[in-house]
């Protein structure tokens, strides 16, 4: 019975993450972990730790995430569970990438990929996407492009829509870095289409933001403004203040350049309100 309750709480946590309710998700995962620990369900504990770690990455608690991923990998080794090990290495790889340690990220992602290839897991493309981002971070654009193309092939093959969108976006990032904005725009639009199909709110906002930035590079301010406003609306509806502020900065910048004082005032006041909210929340 406790095992079933643990599954239930874990599922509630996963649903809460999908809805952007990270505080709720944290509570649910902790409840599930407590139950799994009380019945020494090692596999359940490992899944809870992975989810907690991934949630910590989403809320920028990087140090906590690292501790949790190390523990997951130790549990995976103890259980000799290849899925847990692969997921653990991949999560740690994502942590290293976000922490700016691209070399370690690539090394640890290789470990995850080795297991995935050996066992024939469908998550290969997802690992390659993170690896591609780490290559971009290391300014190895050719490696990044090759990796994203491999990821795209794998993700399309396994029918992984969200990961396919990540591959398109990664390739878009490579093109943007190479200043091929036209190609970047096409790739971001592909990513947006895929993300809309799979209903990935966070990623839709990222795609729209990327499209806005590329439009600005192409001196298409009006087009860029449209993308930023759409991205801002998605951010607000999901309660993502950090990304909303980024989009607002660009919106205010475009209105300032076009000397639209009224709009500048409106969005500046919204920005101030959001900042105050963020400050209150942090307190």
């Amino acid at each position: 019975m406790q095992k079933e309750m643990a599954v239930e709480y874990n599922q509630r946590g996963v649903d809460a993450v999908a809805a952007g309710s990270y505080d709720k998700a944290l509570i649910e995962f902790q409840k599930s972990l407590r139950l799994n620990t009380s019945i020494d369900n090692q596999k359940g504990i490992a899944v809870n730790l992975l989810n907690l770690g991934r949630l910590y990455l989403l809320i920028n608690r990087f140090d906590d995430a690292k501790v949790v991923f190390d523990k997951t990998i130790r549990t995976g080794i103890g259980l000799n569970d290849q899925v847990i090990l692969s997921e653990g290495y991949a999560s740690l790889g994502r942590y290293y990438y976000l922490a700016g340690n691209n070399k370690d990220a690539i090394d640890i992602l290789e470990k995850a990929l080795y297991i995935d290839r050996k066992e024939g897991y469908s998550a290969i493309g997802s690992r390659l996407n993170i690896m591609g981002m780490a290559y971009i971070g290391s300014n190895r654009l050719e490696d990044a492009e090759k990796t994203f193309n491999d990821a795209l092939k794998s993700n399309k093959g396994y029918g992984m829509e969200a990961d396919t969108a990540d591959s398109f976006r990664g390739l878009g990032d490579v093109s943007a870095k190479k200043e091929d904005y036209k190609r970047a725009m096409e790739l971001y639009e592909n990513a947006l289409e895929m993300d809309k199909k799979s209903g990935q709110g966070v990623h839709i906002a990222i795609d729209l933001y990327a499209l806005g930035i590329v439009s600005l590079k192409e001196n298409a301010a009006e087009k860029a403004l449209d993308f930023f406003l759409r991205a801002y609306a998605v951010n607000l509806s999901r309660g993502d203040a950090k990304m909303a502020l980024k989009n607002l900065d660009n919106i205010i910048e475009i209105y300032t350049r076009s000397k639209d004082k009224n709009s500048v005032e409106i969005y500046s006041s919204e920005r101030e309100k959001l900042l105050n909210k963020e400050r209150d929340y942090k307190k």
Partner: protein
Amino acid sequence: MAEQKDPRFKNLEKKVGIFVSIVFVMLLAIFFLMGKERGIFTQKYTLFFTVDSGSGFIEGMPVKLSGFKIGKVKTMSLISDARVKVVLEINKEYQKWIRQGSVAKMLKEGVIGETIIDITVGPASSQLIKDESELPYEKVMGIEELIAKEVKPVLQEVKETISYINNPDSDIKKAIANFKKLSEGLLKTKDRLDEVLKDAKGTVKEATSIFSNLGEKALPVVDKFNNVAEDAEKASKKIPDIMDKVDKAMDDVKQFSDVLSKKSGNIKDMLENAEDTLNDTKEIIKGAKDTWPINTMVPPKEEMKLIPLDGAGKGQ
């Protein structure tokens, strides 16, 4: 012996012989058909499992696989370690489905259905379980155990909460006592305030005579002093009303607390009734879940799911 002349009795032995033969053949056919119906002529083999307690098992209890009767409980016996050996008699034709990996468990068919032994189909790649071999038995959690694990802790918590409210040392009781002390203190403060105001009135009168000596310029100041004194007096008069309201609120809180204490006994009964109702409901739901076609509609229990690992860049 005289020869039989009546034609009706001619060949009587022959006729009786034929009649008896027909009856005998008919009896044989009935016996054969009944035997076939009851599976007497079907080839059988036996499997067994051991359980801690034989309660719930009965000889003759049906054994089913995928909802079809494939045998019955043949015998039950107490073995050396005080465990119970349950021997199942299974039709040989179904042996092909019972392989290593098959498990036996006791289930109830529907809410009021009979109790059966259910055997799961073993993986196609596994070997057949041979005659007179042991079959693994999986214990299915009963309603009582479910309640013991799930409902009882909740009921216990509710009971503890009620006894906590009733405890004179609890925070709630202490808060009520403190509130009472506060209201008494407020009354004393009001009395003191009255005295201070009386003194203030006298002082104001004295000040008025002094100010009147100071001339017309001081008169507005004197008026203000008078107004302040009057306002303070009005405020002081309102304090008893406020105190009445506080007292009334205190009475309500006390009444509520008393009612709660008295009703906690009733609540206990209610909880016990609720426990019974919950038992019944759980049994009905469990039975319904195990019954076709509802069991085909209930989704299988899901495994622990992972949050998808984000593949987006950090700069975005």
